[in-house]
């Protein structure tokens, strides 16, 4: 089976890769590049654990074929911190105890990131809609919603 060559930017770094076309973006991130922050959950687009940003939009990495990211830009949880400093969203998740077992956290962070990049001061309905594709079995979502809601405030006061 022939591999195909793609170029893609992941967390700001340019990659030239040779991949099998039947690999998913999730396979590429976890198995080829060792970026295991992106979690593998249901693999049918239901749980959101594999959520990453593709050109700034939240997508399920399990439902994107790896060759489809040719020429495009991806952000994973590993790319949120800048120069050793956590993203304000990550700080806010810690401050609000929004991380319990942690499995949903990378996906939650990226769904929240997509929301806040487009809308820095969302209301609760907008937040709940933005994370409606991410399942959390621990928190009951309240701390996560609070963490996202207060991220802008947190960022401004730090």
């Amino acid at each position, binding site marked *: 089976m022939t591999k195909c060559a793609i170029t893609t930017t992941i967390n700001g770094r340019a990659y030239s890769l040779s991949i099998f076309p039947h*690999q998913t973006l999730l396979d590429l991130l976890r198995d080829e590049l060792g970026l295991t922050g992106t979690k593998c959950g249901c693999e049918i*687009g239901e749980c959101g654990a594999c959520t990453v940003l593709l050109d700034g939009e*939240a997508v399920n990495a399990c*439902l*994107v*074929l790896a060759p489809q990211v040719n020429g495009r830009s991806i952000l994973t949880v590993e790319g949120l911190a800048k120069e050793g400093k956590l993203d304000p969203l990550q700080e806010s998740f810690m401050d609000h105890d929004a991380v319990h077992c942690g499995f949903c956290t990378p996906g939650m962070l990226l769904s929240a990131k997509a929301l806040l990049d487009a809308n820095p001061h969302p209301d609760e309905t907008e937040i709940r809609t933005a994370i409606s594709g991410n399942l959390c079995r621990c928190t009951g979502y309240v701390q996560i919603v609070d963490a996202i809601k207060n991220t802008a405030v947190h960022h401004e006061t730090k």
Partner: protein
Amino acid sequence: MRPFEYIPIQSVEEACAHLAEYAPDASILAGGTDLLIEWRRPTGKSPKVVVDISHIRGLSGIATDGGEVSLKPLTTHTEVLKSRIIREFAPLLAKAASGIGSPQIRNRGTVGGNIMNAATCADTVPPLIALGAKVTLQSKRGSRQLALADLFIKPYHTRAAADEVLIDIRFPKLSARTRGAFIKLGRRNALSISRLSVAALLEQHSDGTIVSACIVPGAAFPTWQRVAEAESMLGGQKPSSALFAAVGQRVSEVMIAQTGRRWSTEYKEPVIAVLVRRALEQCTVQSVMQEGANA
């Protein structure tokens, strides 16, 4: 997922050439939100060749074209629900798109994929049929346009040949006198498959008298259809909850006459009637209703 040959495509002509060569072993990939799940399923269909049309620029976007709206098939559900054109001229389609899957699914899934996958629960199809949508299929042999309502044979089967690709969806703008509604019933708010849905349009005179109606249930029939037997009860009538309840009852009867009594009928029989009534109520200016709509 089993291995396949992957062909990234840049133009419709290129897609048609490859499909002419590889059909019926080829599968057309757009957003992939249905196909990747199917390909990964142990007993699912697995393609030998994947023709990836997702990068064809000309197959994406929404525009007005005279009295019509042109909706290109690679337009995502997110683009549909945010579109000013769709919100103004086909708000029931925006409503349907907003309830599909999750934000992640809506960012990848396309209207064309929703149509061509032909699952009976596809949420964009009932509104598009209600709107009178036509679709254009193209192959190396030429192109043809047909009514969306005529595209489907049975669940997951369309009349599109293996070498044909969907290149356009278009429908007339809703007139100022026509209002539409879409109601979906799922098991939860997000990431839910439609158990039943109803798309409805109601054209009314300024005094409220109904001129014409269109009712298209989803996940109720093997393929989508307008329910003419129920629509005909509405012409010339004044809107009322009692009338809408009777129309809902008629839709329920037609559904059972066509599908027979199945394990889900006990539930669907009363519920489709209520969904139809509610959809028609949503299409009606409340001030012209003959009686309370709280029932």
